[in-house]
């Protein structure tokens, strides 16, 4: 664990080096990359903390649930498919949207299906 954190920190330190903006003719977009980085790091720690507590019984439904959550790529796909972009770009977005939507639907449905099956005791059978 410590090694992972150290390696990760070194990677983060490399980012400011890469992020030197070159002198450019057009105004560079004002994306606040530092905020995004903050969000990423915090979200990762939250994720680690939350998942560590998930019951081992539920690791399979956890994986299908996180599949569905990572299908948040629908959001990016909707933008690329629906905005006023060239046809080719939107075609790629269309396929991406189809793929992510499949994940959304099958991920949540199968997780629910599996979770329905976990019962604490069976009525009528004495242990």
């Amino acid at each position, binding site marked *: 664990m410590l090694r992972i954190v150290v390696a990760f920190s070194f990677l983060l330190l490399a980012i400011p080096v890469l992020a030197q903006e*070159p002198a450019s003719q057009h105004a560079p977009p004002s994306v606040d990359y530092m905020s995004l980085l903050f969000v990423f790091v915090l979200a990762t720690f939250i994720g680690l903390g939350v998942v560590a507590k998930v019951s081992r019984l539920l690791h399979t439904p956890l994986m299908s649930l*996180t599949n569905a959550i990572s299908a948040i*790529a629908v959001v*990016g796909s909707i933008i690329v498919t629906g905005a006023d972009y060239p046809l080719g770009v*939107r075609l790629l977005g269309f396929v991406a*949207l189809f793929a992510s939507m499949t994940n959304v639907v099958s991920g949540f449905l199968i997780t629910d299906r599996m*979770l329905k099956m976990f*019962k604490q005791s069976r009525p009528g059978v004495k242990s």
Partner: protein
Amino acid sequence: MSPTLVQLAYLVAAVLFIFSMYWMNDPKTARRAVMAGASAMGLAILATWLQPSIIHHIWIIVALIAGCAVGIPLSRVPLTAVPQRTAISHAFGGLAAGLVGTAKYWLWSSTAPEQLTQFCMTALVVEVILGFLTFTGSLMAAGKLQEIKWIPQRPVTYPFQNVTNIGLLALAVLLGLLLVLNPTGVFAGFAMVLIILFALVFGVLLIIPIGGADMPTVISILNSYAGLSAVAMGFVLDNKLLIVAGALDGSSGLILSIIMCRAMNRSFTNVLFGAFGQVKAAEATGTQRSYKAETIEGAAQVLEQANLVVIIPGYGMAVAQAQHRVRELADQLKKRGITVKYAIHPVAGRMPGHMNVLLAEADVPYSELVEMDEINPDMPQCDVALVIGANDTVNPAARYDKTTPIYGMPIIHADKAKAVFAIKRSKNPGFAGIDNELYFQDRTYMLFGDAKAVVGDLVKQLSGGSGMH
């Protein structure tokens, strides 16, 4: 929808996602997790769709319907196919990320090159490489799990394999670096195509040398990658929700991978790059070792006399779809006042928690499922250990034989039970390609045959004979 409203909706969705994962900590609250996650997703989709810049609605509707059309049947697969479905899901996730990255690069390089700052370009390259390698890698994994004919089950290795794999990845990264420094140069488009190609091939080559038994770890790692490619998409599109949701998936996959690796006592790099499962040349043992076989009647008699029976399921039970028979057997035993527990090894099956889900489907109460670390101390008190389709997870050689590939892997101490019955399809070695020392011990008796049939016969024997004792 105003930008502020969209961002607020995204914030609510992010919080719901976090709660969703949090509620998975207990089966009692777990179903809320699905509700929360689905609501969050719905909110995110609506908030994005209702933005004024989105105008091609028909396309979106068609894609959403097509997604449902494929997603719904996919969710209905039999539970034994869950590992494959999971792998396919990762493939789609990676594909979506790769495609969106490519689309954005295409768009910006032709209409708005000033968007391609070094940071943005780096994120784009990461998204494309990670996305496409996850796509092909996961498809390979799905193929191995489904045991498709032309995808070899055993690890495929060749000389200099690791060098070529790493070399390919390094080449893609190098090209990516060049792109970052010069996103709109003459050869930029060509470089991007090459990067995509290399990533696709690398995904395949990465998974080929990994054997079926290592799939739980591989699937967890691919899960993480799919999440990380969504994070990269978030950086490219300046979207915090993508980053949060992707990070949740990424860390989940990371933790599961760590658990799996610890459970096999191997490191990531060993799993990915240390081709496991090469069949060792059969060593000439001095004496011809023999199994002790037992009849159904004999096994039933021993079972009836027991106080504590521990059932140890493995991949073989999944393949034979024997979980329902197993539960019937447990019912027969419990009727006689015998305590029945199930010992679950973390890497039993083909994905984390696989056995738990199969047994839950068979109506086994989850209070009877016990983790390996908890049940091992009780194994000496166990009267009968019933090994059903488990092999490497109960092989005592892992404790002392330094030459075996599974050396050091924590196992379930089936050999410490007072008697062991092992149900096995045939005399062939398992995926590790080695003999299982458990089968040759004094107190072990084999019941050869298909797990479903053998357990079914045991049930019949126990229910038929109960009137006579």
